[in-house]
């Protein structure tokens, strides 16, 4: 009889503990996100002109199990001639300590505008691609990557 009573109390305690724990665990995710560093950077690069949302092929995993090695590929439709080509492409990540990831310089010699690299993502976040044409026009797209284990150290 005594044993049964003890067990009952401990279970209630356990439930209370679980409730308290989930409560605190949910707090950080409820607090609102900080200003978007990547969008600020895009504003800075385009000198406030902004970029047109465009249909650029940006290949990123939906879920990255390891944030240390996230493969990113992109391909843009461009004739890549002297008079009409993509000049630079920026990859930006809004959740990393610094939004800059990479800047690619393309030339008409390349015949196509596509590249692949691997990057680090510290947490679940949006990855932005910003492209500048030789005539100064900006295009952009973005994709969300869920990161299971972050990859920025610290």
């Amino acid at each position, binding site marked *: 009889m005594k044993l049964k009573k003890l067990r009952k109390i401990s279970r209630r305690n356990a439930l209370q503990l679980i409730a308290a724990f989930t409560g605190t665990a949910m707090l950080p995710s409820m607090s609102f996100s900080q200003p978007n560093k990547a969008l600020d950077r895009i504003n800075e690069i385009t000198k406030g002109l902004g970029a047109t949302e465009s249909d650029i092929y940006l290949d990123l995993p939906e879920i990255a199990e390891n944030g240390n090695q996230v493969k990113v590929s992109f391909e843009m439709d461009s004739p890549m001639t002297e008079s009409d080509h993509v000049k630079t492409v920026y990859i930006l990540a809004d959740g990393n300590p*610094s939004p800059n990831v*990479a*800047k690619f310089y393309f030339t008409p010699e390349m015949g196509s505008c596509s590249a692949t690299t691997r*990057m680090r*993502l510290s947490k679940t976040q949006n990855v932005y691609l910003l492209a500048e044409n030789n005539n100064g026009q900006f295009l952009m797209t973005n994709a969300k990557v869920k990161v299971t284990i972050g990859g920025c150290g610290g």
Partner: protein
Amino acid sequence: MSSIKPRVKVPKEVSIDEIVEIKTLIRHPMHSGRMKDADGQTIPRQIINFFSAKFNGKDVFKMDLEPSISTNPYIVFQYKAKESGTFDFEWIDDSGEKYSISKKMAVS
């Protein structure tokens, strides 16, 4: 630092106007300046910050790398073959150290 060795994959023979894929990889720790070692000391930033590819001396592709690029940077890009020649690849790291490699490509 002879331990850092670049590797590049360039097709040896291609036909004219073919778009070829160039794959590059360099062994480099890419210390972002945020990691800590076993003693809790911050490892200073040491990354490859620039990559360039030239064909017969002419600029083809360049890239600025930031600390957000993974260890052992892997870069793939494309090139439209027009004439036979040599690719020169170069990586530069924060200390100013340069690593380079050349590859020949025959175009028919």
